[in-house]
């Protein structure tokens, strides 16, 4: 029994921390104290993670799996949330009376994600995803008095409810077909019975719909722009990083993990979806004059590149997850710098002449945008290079060509923002101040982006171990 408790100790710590912050929030603590408490509970959770050695075990009789992939992803979510918390502390909120609730929801969301990624059973998976969604709806609609945020929350709820409904129905069909919800058993039975039964395909598609909604893959990406546009900046940044990564992790766990599925027609379809995601994401961002929607569509485009990695076999998996790790830092950095430079006005004109008004902020923002676009010395290039390398190695030449073509289109709107910042004259010449936490977050992300760009060896070794 103690073994199971030990396994989910990090989640417990997070939940406890969240509750404590909620209580402090009620008693009127300042925002930075609450943020500090959140950071403390996150680091505590990190240290409490079960040691890497005995990872092959499982807890709660198969409900939770402790494999290397799950372990790595839990660390990934902790790091992502630390960045999100830093941004929330650095960001200038209109009114910060309900900061306690904000951090409460954030920590709960992280706990759910960590549970979802290490779940070995479809029931556990559905429950944690549903819990995460509920918390996300509230986070999206957090600013009660702002018409955009509430509309974003409602839209997210309506979309999310439908998707998880579809996924649930898919899970019931899977339960009906195989009589069990345990992923390992399902994979084993799948290998025997063959993949091509129509009901199985319906079930697979429905489950894929639920997960693809989270990972914002094309047919299910419609909500992304509106929700990110409406939600406050830190929430949008958090959505573009953590839940999206969870979507891909679960896709790998359910679909790309099972060898049977991989040898069927599935990778081909994923490649087509990847190209669709990339192209539609980048094209939509082409003529955007609202920075938030531009970054939202760029995150859809990046999701396309990650999916392209997933579609091309083992080498692709490593490339995809390397891309995801770099993506966290790049995207969080980009959202953070956009938020810190002009929190309230989101149209591109607000960023005119930012080169003079906030030289360091503009420099950081340019660095992240260039990394997102894939300029060589930065990590973004190496990530895209690995995806292209995996595609060419798997003989998906048209996929590699699509990644290249999309990079050109993507470069356009990334550069458009940089151009506006450096080449246009600013409306008003007053200095833009960025808070201390903001600079800390930008510095961490920038160091990661440049560091992994120049010396990615340690990261690649870890990934090689995970996807041995």
């Amino acid at each position: 029994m103690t073994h199971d408790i030990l396994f989910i100790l990090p989640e417990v710590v997070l939940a406890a921390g969240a509750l404590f912050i909620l209580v402090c929030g009620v008693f009127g603590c300042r925002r930075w104290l609450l943020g500090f408490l959140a950071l403390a509970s996150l680091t505590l959770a990190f240290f409490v993670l079960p040691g890497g050695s005995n990872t092959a075990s499982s807890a709660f009789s198969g409900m939770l799996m402790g494999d290397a992939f799950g372990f790595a992803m839990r660390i990934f979510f902790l790091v992502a949330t630390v960045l999100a918390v830093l941004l929330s502390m650095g960001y200038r909120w209109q009114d910060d009376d309900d900061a306690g609730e904000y951090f409460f929801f954030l920590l709960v969301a992280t706990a759910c994600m960590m549970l979802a990624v290490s779940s070995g059973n479809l029931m556990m998976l559905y429950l944690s995803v549903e819990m995460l969604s509920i918390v996300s709806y509230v986070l999206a609609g957090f600013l009660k008095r702002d018409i955009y945020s509430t509309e974003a929350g409602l839209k997210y709820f309506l979309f999310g409810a439908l998707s998880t409904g579809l996924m649930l129905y898919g899970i019931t069909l899977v339960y009906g077909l195989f009589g069990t919800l345990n992923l390992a058993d399902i994979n084993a039975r799948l290998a025997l019975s063959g993949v091509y039964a129509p009901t199985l395909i319906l079930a697979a598609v429905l489950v894929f719909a639920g997960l693809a909604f989270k990972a914002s893959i094309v047919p299910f990406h419609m909500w992304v722009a509106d929700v990110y546009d409406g939600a406050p900046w830190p929430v949008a940044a958090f959505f573009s990083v953590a839940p999206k990564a969870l979507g891909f992790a679960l896709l790998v766990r359910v679909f790309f993990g099972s060898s049977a599925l991989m040898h069927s027609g599935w990778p081909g379809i994923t490649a087509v979806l990847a190209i669709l995601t990339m192209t539609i994401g980048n094209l939509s961002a082409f003529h955007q004059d609202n920075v938030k929607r531009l970054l939202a569509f760029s995150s859809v485009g990046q999701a396309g590149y990650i999916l392209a990695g997933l579609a091309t076999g083992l080498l692709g998996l490593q490339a995809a997850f390397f891309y995801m790790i770099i993506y966290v830092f790049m995207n969080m950095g980009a959202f953070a710098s956009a938020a810190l430079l002009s929190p309230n006005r989101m149209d591109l004109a607000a960023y005119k002449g930012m080169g003079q008004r906030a030289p360091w902020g503009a420099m950081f923002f340019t660095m992240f945008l260039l990394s997102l676009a894939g300029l060589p010395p930065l990590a973004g290039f190496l990530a895209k290079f690995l995806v292209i390398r995996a595609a060419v190695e798997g003989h998906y030449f048209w996929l590699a060509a699509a990644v290249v073509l999309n990079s050109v289109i993507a470069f356009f709107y990334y550069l458009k923002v940089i151009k506006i910042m450096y080449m246009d004259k600013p409306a008003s010449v007053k200095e833009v101040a960025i808070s201390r936490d903001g600079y800390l977050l930008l510095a961490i992300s920038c160091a990661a982006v440049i560091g992994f760009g120049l010396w990615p060896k340690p990261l690649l070794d870890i990934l090689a171990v995970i996807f041995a």
Partner: protein
Amino acid sequence: MPHILSTIIFLPLLGALVLAVIPARREALIRFTAAAFNAAVLGCVGALCVLFNHQNGGMQFAEDHSWIGQVGIRYSLGVDGVSLALVFLTALLGFLACLASDRIRTKVKGYFIVFQILMTGMLGTFLALDLVLFYMFWETVLIPMFFLIGIWGGPRREYAAWKFFFYTLAGSLIMLLGIVAVYFWAEPHSFSMITLARSTASLSPVVQGALFGAFFLAFAIKIPVFPFHTWLPDAHVEAPTPVSVILAGVLLKMGTYGLLRICVPLFPAAMTMLALPLGILGVINLVYGACVAFAQTDIKKMIAYSSVSHMGFVLLGVAAMNSTGFNGSLLEMFNHGIITGAMFLLVGVVYERAHTREIGAFGGLASVMPRYAFFLTFMALASLGLPGLSGFVGEFLSLAGVFVAFPSVAIAGAVGLIALVVLFLVMIKKMLWGSPGKGVSWPDMGLKEVCIILPLVVITLAVGFYPDSVLQYQKHTIDILVKLL
């Protein structure tokens, strides 16, 4: 010095960091440190030339460390006959452009930081031996150039910067596909150009042709070859003078250097198969460039198009596929860099005084500015290939080389040369001769401007009289290159 190549590449980057620290108000200090760093790079490259062993045609001062092991990317640098002259050209033009940058008065600190990053990118491209490293340096050149043209350029600078950036980016990304494809098709998977040179020769011509196509597209845009050249005039017209010196002097050479360094050794079968089309493209470049230049009224656009026709000679040299042709094309690259760099500096001198580039506005400059007239005539004659000056030697060797392979192409090239002669002579007539216009009463070239032009004039004369001073460096490397075909 063990790591001389790495110091050469990353010294400008260090300079950029040092400049970042200096406060923006101290413009004089910024200009001085930038010039100092560029002088240091020129000094290192000079030392490199002295230490370089002519007889040995292979790679010298090579550095090779594993960088990203799993993917097979190595940090390998090396210099041989082919790249030495171009590295010297980059260092020299960089230094002179830095000196000539006193015309830049807005955002001086940003200008020099971006300029140093550009230097690192260019030097790296010529010294890298690993395909991915080559690609990385190739791309780092893009952003600084975009900023240099975009922020400090002329009226239509943003359009020109956009066009330049996306033209080159599209080409280089297709090259990235080529690089990855070559990695998987070569038997011992590797990105190093040297090991690939041995293993790709065995590939079937069709595969070599496809890979060559990917690489050639990126280089064709950069050279520029006929259909892909429309970015050059806009980029030149809008770029400030020192930037267009670098653009014409060095960036065009990265394309042709790529041809000689990557396409010839890696895809010999494809190159010999496609030599004739390459030659024909060279002639089209030559004649078309000269014709369109003749019809221009903007002096900078005219020189830009004349660079297109000079690059036609380099293509002819490469299409010859023999040692004379390669020697000729490499020498033509070096000479063209020096001469066109000087031409743009001279145009800068006039632009700074007249603030217009319309040829109609000048006339009879010879009587107003005699020293300027001498230098402009000297450089115009050098670029039209007057024997006794460096332009002729490169063109002669290229024509002699291509004559052995494709006589008809060489004859068309020689006839095309007449168009080039007419172009430059008419330019001299319109600008220098005739009676001076009404408002034409500008001061002659100052001492500083003369000191910037002088080294280029001396080099043109030296190479013209004694071409072996440059040829000796590259002869043996090219003999090895030819043996690979």
